[in-house]
């Protein structure tokens, strides 16, 4: 796409920024969604949300929310992919174990020290020492429960493959579960974290979560420090931060007609179609080409490609600055969000 559009017409970027500011300023309940961008853009987006009382959610909000809820309910034992790669000797893969990020994480973890692998509900093609069948996410939860009960000696006659898996887990010097919250139900997640906690009483056992896609883990962390609560929340001057994973699910907010404007912050993911039920501002990469353009669209650079950007790293579970691999003059999402914020009338800018 060209650098900016308003109502489908190519316009100078400043005109699009002004139109975006007008749209947000006239909104009763705006949403700021996507947050599929680098750290600078997420911080700018949440600052803007705080100023205008917008509901905030991430492109992978459902998955991040499930992860955050399980954390808040039961806590966790966690480690990094790098630790497991280097020192782990037994790996438990819970869930299908496919998908870009998950595959990349498992491959990275398996690079280091030789490991014995237990899979639960994985594709038959994945090599494993012991493979426990589970057809769907509910079956994975049941299998985890059965495995945990086997380990605790609560079953009179545990199935042979579960006995074998339990024995492997018991013998581990440093075992770890690798899982993706996107592919497990909440009961499975809770069972899995409980299993890790049980095993730790005797020896080192931990978990590695596949980070949410599109810099979602960074978005969750930033919401933590700027709002004090997880994503799917809203900050208003009167009430401070409110977090409610159902109430502030952006898809629900828009679907039920509560919101009247949306700002989608990309470019790491493009907006879903349902977002467009309200007047929408989209910050996206140059490849963004929907059938009909949203009310406002502005091209932005990709962090780590067009410009440097801070992104969550799978290997270290930490934030790192990624230099630009092919620098261009495209503006960053952060610059555009800040420009929209600055263009708001004083009464809405929070200044």
């Amino acid at each position, binding site marked *: 796409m060209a650098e900016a559009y308003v109502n489908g017409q190519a316009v100078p970027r400043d005109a699009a920024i002004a139109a975006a500011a007008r749209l947000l300023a006239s909104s009763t309940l705006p949403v700021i969604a996507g947050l599929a961008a680098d750290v600078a853009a997420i911080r700018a987006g949440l600052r803007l949300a705080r100023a205008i009382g917008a509901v905030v959610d991430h492109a992978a909000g459902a998955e991040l929310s499930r992860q955050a809820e399980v954390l808040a309910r039961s806590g966790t034992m966690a480690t*990094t992919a790098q630790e497991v790669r280097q020192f782990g000797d037994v790996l438990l893969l819970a869930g299908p174990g496919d998908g870009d990020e998950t595959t990349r994480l498992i491959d990275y973890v398996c690079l280091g020290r030789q490991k014995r692998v237990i899979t639960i509900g994985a594709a038959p093609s994945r090599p494993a020492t012991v493979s426990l069948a589970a057809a769907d996410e509910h079956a994975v939860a049941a299998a985890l429960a059965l495995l945990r009960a086997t380990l605790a000696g609560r079953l009179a006659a545990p199935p042979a493959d579960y006995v074998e898996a339990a024995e492997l887990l018991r013998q581990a010097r440093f075992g770890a579960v690798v899982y993706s919250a996107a592919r497990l139900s909440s009961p499975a997640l809770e069972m899995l974290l409980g299993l890790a906690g049980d095993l730790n009483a005797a020896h080192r056992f931990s978990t590695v979560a596949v980070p949410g896609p599109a810099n979602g883990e960074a978005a969750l962390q930033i919401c*933590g420090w700027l709002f004090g609560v997880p994503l799917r929340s809203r900050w208003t001057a009167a009430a401070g931060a409110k977090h409610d994973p159902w109430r502030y699910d952006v898809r629900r907010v828009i679907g039920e007609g509560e919101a009247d404007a949306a700002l989608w912050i990309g470019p790491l993911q493009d907006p879903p179609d349902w977002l467009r039920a309200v007047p929408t501002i989209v910050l996206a990469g140059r490849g963004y080409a929907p059938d009909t353009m949203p009310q406002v669209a502005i091209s932005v650079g990709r962090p780590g490609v067009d410009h440097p950007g801070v992104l969550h790293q799978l290997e270290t579970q930490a934030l790192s600055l990624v230099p630009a691999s092919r620098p261009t003059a495209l503006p960053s999402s952060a610059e555009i969000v800040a420009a929209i914020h600055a263009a708001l009338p004083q009464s809405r800018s929070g200044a």
Partner: protein
Amino acid sequence: MIHLKGGYLVDPVNRLDGPGDLWIEGEHIVAPPSGRLAAETIDCSGCVVMAGAIDIHSHIGGGSVNTARLLLPEQHPAALWRASDTALSRIGFDVETTGRLYAEMGFTTVVEPAMMPSNGLHAHLELADIPIIDKGALVVLGNEDFLLTLLREKDSRSAVRDYVSYMVESTGALGVKVINAGASAAFKANARTFSLDDEVPGHGVTSRQIVLALQQAVDELGIPHPLHIHCNNLGVPGNADTALATMEATSGRAAHFAHVQFYGYGKEGRRGFSSAAARVAEQVNRRKDVTVDVGQIMFGQTVTISSDTLRQFTARNFSRPRKWVISETDFNGSGIVPYRYSSSDFYNVVQWAVGLELFLLIDDPWRVFFTTDHPNGAPFTAYPELFALLMDRQVRSNAIAALPKRALAMTGLASIGREYTLAEIAIMTRAAPARLLGLADRGHLGRGARADIAVYRRREDKAEMFRHAAVTVKGGAIVVRDGTVIARPEGRALVVKPGAGSAISRRMERYYDTTFGLSPRFFHVDAAALGRSDPFLEVACRS
């Protein structure tokens, strides 16, 4: 130019303890002008004027603090019924509130004491988003495979020094902290207890060797803040012996001992838990190279956040509410365990008394610091109540009267009559922290000092007096009026640059490549990543 007129100045560095005026131009305190009028005059009559306060140990930002936020969304004020009645509602859990609450109490500089080397950028991003106050961070060293290998192979002293310098510069640190030296590494090898002379399994070095090597490196690099030590055996009955043995081991060079309240325990009595504060205080009084902060506990709900993984793993059994996070990261680890200190709990009451005893029995206010180890002992917002307990004997005896006698009998608190003076408060919260951290530009009201100033209206109720500053000035800007924030400039992060050589950089490059398959830039804190025009302020090292 701003004129602070007719206040009562308390500045132990410049021996001020009486009525006087201050003038501010730009970011600094200046001489009285001749033939010029100030653009703004603030009437400070009836007020005490001190330098802005400095907190040397408060967990305000970084991965672990943030995990605590995500673990406990129900503790956020917005989620709490009658939030104003609970301690955590005042904790300032989001970064904006943290900066505002500190400024409202007249604090202008705060040190985050536990930046994990693998998570430095995250810590700095959070610190950068805390408004108003200046920040600094201590990098946690002592569990990294690289360092332990250097020590085991008896690599040269200069190699350890270069490594420490590299880590400090790479993470943007103000100093170095060691936390239960070697225990996080030992925990990974399934150790569940760890003391000063225990060896890290598979590494062949003891906790003592790690502490001494880091202390020496920090000293020789000229980093102003001495090694910040969190000893082994935190919270364990009888652990005063560990603290005393560590003070003995480190004598001859400066060392700072963090939150000593958590090490002030004996094993007397039917429950095997008693105050050993007098023994610890006596040792501190004798050893002039030792400084301590207290880590006072106050009753109520809080959350403990520590990189002492091993200790937190044990503490998880006492979590209230019943949930916890233990994470073992590269180089290190951390544990988040929510906890409620109860005024009817025998152990908690002993802990409370031990902290106050330490404050009152350590003679030299230049060597003992106010901390609650926020949020481990209590939120930092409990400082005003703590000042009142120490400045007013009556407030203290009222508090004591409400607590179980059996617990207090295991302590010596009731027999101590000392009351802190305003000058002592000014030393402990301003002058001494600035000296300890090497911040010559603050902690006093002399000409040329940074205009970080707190003005408090005098009141009988000391807690009330210190809770809301009448005026707080940060870097020459009036940021608080009548206890409320009126401006929120960005603060900066204080860093030291001891000078890491290129030889160590190349060596680290190779190490990261072979161990992690990654470049060290993954762990580097780059000013450009923080999104601020001028995020750092360099503090000079000793030459």
